[in-house]
């Protein structure tokens, strides 16, 4: 009898998967439309009401009444479901793949119990404007989570109102602006300093808030350069907005000096803690001297990424800046929880209500399942995993980890395939294309590519040693193929849902189409025309 297990291993190591992603060749939803079909029915207006009010839509003034119904597709319920479930299969999320390739996104496990709790009616059916007596439960959750964040960061007050990470970065920029305005110094202080390896939103949000942006480049070892900072600060400095450790995985050992230099110049310091996963319980914003910080709940705190949201951003500030926080804050008077709207110095509202409460619930539950010891383990194992993977990847010929030679990294590493590219002509993006044939995702870097031929990997604490081995084995395999069969690599992916996309039309106004109707129009067809065989 053939032992299949022997064929799945070679020399004691598992073979790479014979992976193929789901490929449904699913039409665009409009193409499924059949006149007359209904996906759901709406409760009719009761006779008693109809008799009283008559035909209400008919009474809308002509110019305000919709004449032609919107050209939405008409599809029966099972077909809608089937369509979307098929589309759902055509993704590589954390539930499916060893998602260490999405560096800086912290693709850790999102516990299902938390999703289930957030789906309970006691969470989903709450209106934000209900009497506070009726929402003590969710208010308490928001309050308790704030206390947890205070301890994790060392700062004094938090707002959970920002809808995600960049929204939180913007909120910090707005608070910095309000602070200087309150001292009559805003006209003088119009510059924000950041680094090239900080998330692009640090630069972009500061700019949106009205600041001029000064970007620091690292020194040759890849560390943020204190001398560069000193050259950049002046009496015009409003603040420093910086990620640490940076996307390269390098922790800035002079971070406290950085903060000091900016403080001496009269600026505030905001800590982008998107990469906090590796330093939970190890080091905090407070001790480094920061005035503000933010966390991404959909990164460090495990809430699911949802294809790009909803997430949540938590903004933390020192006592001195608490008056500027978005309004309302969640308070406790010893007996009950309530919303405090009486905050005259607040920057105002960042969003319609109080933030993404169900996301906060998941983050709270996650933190409460781990506690101080557990969070410490999260950080330590995430960093262990990262250095373990670093060790494996550095052994792949053609790969390197630029900067900080011989040093350990924290949460992630930005690698470079420069040597492989020079040798074989195969680029980093192409290696990513081929890696998809083995069921994993792979991300290069934020722009600009300061590290040439980049590849940013972030294991987090959620993957097994075997999974990390598998990921590294895939990269090693593809790197080898780049030497022996570069055309195969460049023509990848072969086993993905679709093949590589031709991006040219997407930059050409005469060809781009953001909606199906635009596409048909540019192709010369009307939206109502059926595409006959």
């Amino acid at each position, binding site marked *: 009898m053939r032992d299949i297990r022997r064929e799945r291993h070679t020399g004691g190591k598992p073979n790479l998967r014979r992976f193929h992603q789901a490929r449904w060749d699913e039409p665009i939803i409009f193409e499924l439309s059949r006149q007359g079909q209904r*996906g759901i029915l709406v409760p009719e207006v009761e006779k008693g009401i109809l008799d009283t009010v008559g035909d209400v839509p008919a009474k809308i003034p002509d110019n305000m009444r919709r004449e032609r119904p919107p050209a939405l597709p008409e599809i029966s319920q099972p077909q809608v479901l089937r369509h979307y479930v098929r589309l759902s299969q055509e993704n590589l999320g954390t539930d499916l793949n060893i998602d260490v390739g999405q560096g800086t996104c912290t693709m850790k496990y999102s516990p299902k119990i938390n999703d289930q709790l957030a789906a309970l009616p006691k969470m989903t059916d709450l209106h934000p404007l209900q009497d506070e007596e009726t929402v003590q439960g969710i208010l308490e959750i928001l309050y308790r989570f704030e206390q947890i964040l205070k301890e994790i960061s060392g700062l004094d007050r938090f707002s959970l109102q920002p809808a995600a990470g960049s929204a939180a970065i913007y909120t910090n920029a707005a608070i910095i602006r309000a602070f200087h305005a309150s001292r009559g110094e805003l006209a003088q202080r119009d510059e924000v300093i950041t680094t090239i390896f900080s998330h692009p939103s640090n630069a972009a949000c500061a700019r949106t808030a009205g600041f001029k942006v000064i970007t620091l480049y690292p020194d040759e070892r890849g560390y943020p350069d204190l001398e560069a900072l000193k050259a950049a600060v002046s009496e015009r400095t409003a603040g420093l907005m910086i990620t640490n450790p940076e996307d390269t995985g390098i922790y800035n050992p002079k971070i406290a000096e950085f903060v000091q230099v900016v403080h001496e110049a009269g600026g505030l310091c905001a800590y982008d803690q998107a990469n906090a996963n590796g330093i939970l319980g190890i080091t905090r914003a407070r001790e480094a001297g920061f005035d503000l910080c933010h966390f991404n709940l959909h990164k460090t705190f495990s809430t699911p990424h949802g294809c790009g949201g909803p997430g949540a951003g938590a903004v933390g500030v020192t006592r001195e800046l608490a008056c500027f926080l978005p309004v309302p804050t969640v308070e406790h008077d010893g007996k009950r929880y309530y919303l405090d709207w009486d905050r005259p110095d607040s920057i105002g509202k960042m969003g319609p209500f109080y933030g993404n409460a169900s996301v906060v619930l998941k983050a709270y539950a996650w933190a409460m399942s781990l506690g101080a010891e557990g969070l410490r383990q999260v950080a330590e194992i995430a960093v262990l995993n990262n250095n373990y993977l670093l060790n494996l990847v550095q052994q792949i010929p053609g790969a390197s980890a630029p900067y900080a030679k011989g040093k350990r990294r924290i949460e992630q590493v930005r690698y470079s395939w420069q040597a492989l590219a020079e040798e074989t002509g195969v680029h980093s993006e192409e290696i990513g294309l081929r890696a998809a044939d083995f069921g994993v995702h792979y991300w290069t870097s934020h722009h600009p590519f300061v590290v040439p031929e980049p590849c940013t990997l972030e294991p987090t604490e959620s993957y097994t040693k075997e999974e990390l081995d598998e990921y590294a084995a895939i990269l090693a395999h593809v790197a080898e193929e780049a030497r022996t069969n570069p055309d195969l690599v460049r023509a990848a992916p072969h086993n993905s849902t679709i093949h590589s996309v031709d991006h040219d039309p997407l930059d050409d106004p005469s060809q781009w189409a953001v909606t199906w109707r635009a596409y048909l129009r540019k192709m010369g067809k009307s939206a109502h025309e059926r595409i006959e065989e």
Partner: protein
Amino acid sequence: MPKESPKVYPYIPNSVPAVKEEMLRAVGARHVAEFYEDVPEELRLEGLMDLPEPFVSEYELKRHLQGLLARNRTAGECVSFLGAGCYQHHVPAVCDEVNRRGEFLTAYAGEPYDDHGRFQALFEYASMMGELLDMDVVNVPTYDGFQAAATAIRMAARITGRGQVLICATIGPDKLSKIRDYCQPGPDIELVGYDPRTGQMDLAALQAAISTETAAVYFENPSYLGFVQTQGNEISAMAHDHGAICVVSVNPISLGVLAPPAHYGGDIACGDIQPLGIHMQFGGGHGGFIATRDEPRYVLEYPSRLFGIAPTRVPGEYGFGDVAYERTSFAVREQGKEWVGTAAALWGITAGVYLALMGPQGMFEIGEAVMARARYAAMQIDKVEGVKAPAFSAPHFHEFVVDLNATNKTVTEINEALLARGIFGGKDLSHEFPELGQSALYCVTEVHTQGDLDRLVTALQEVVS
């Protein structure tokens, strides 16, 4: 060095001591502390953080959370007439089924070839919204309707190069607060008054305020206060006469019965998709849309991602990708338009499912359903002694202002009494619009039966007498 715990965590596979040791050996380290060599000693925490005792077993965690949530009383358990930006509609089961699939829930930023499903689902969402709005370009959702409005206004300022925006004075103060903060670098904001009888924008005031310095005129349809702004054509005409852009914030669930902004001269449409198949979640279920014509001068000003359809190397196969990516902060950092980041993609997909289920007929029916019920409610409430509804004489969608001044009771008192009867009364407007006195914003949707509405009227009757 704090003592290392031998505990093994279900979410942390390599916390198994033997595995941890093996991995440490593989990298030539004796202790994880070595990995933090760059963290200065003086910045390291001593000992563990002071956090609450955890619930390490799943059962205990669930019990803890359920215990907390038990202290909530939901809108579903009572009868709620709250709206004001967050709406109670029926959420189709298929919507929940789709957005709870782990494949969607845990996907993020994959490439067009390995996250094709996400791209297609969002392209379809944008396409269906495009039909609803009768516009060719719709963004991948931003955070919420507040952000959409604020960004739309700044887009208009960039497009025209002008420094002023005129905003209807019936805008909700919370949204105005967001816009004021967001527009601090510009444009300048001026409010345009309204007719106290009809709520409609005062066109004479608009005429007086508008100039060639105006980048945009912004209004809402339906208004925050519930009425339909019937002068859309006049307002947009006046805007265009001065070279200004007409920005209209709309409720997408109204667009089966109400004309979309494109039909009365709107240039940028914006709003919130929460009503489209997303649970209220205490205000945590929002997503913002921005829509325009397919003209480069508009398209190139969007900060959000825009997913376009494109061919692949295989004939007949299509894929998706970012349109004009270089306008975004992802591509060019501070040189991009505003910024872009994680926002509300899953809600976008959900709204797409909702629109696909509803179809054109369903969207008409839901509009009719909520308008008829709201009209009925207003008529009946109006019969209550001392109460006037709707306060504005204009057509309404599903919300209306109830004037309670003649009852000599405050909205607070009335709502308290209603609450005791298991009813959530309308939002208190007395602080937001002092000129309306003791007034409340009532919202009626398809979830309300005639019985619910009659119950409200009876309760009001009791409470005010």
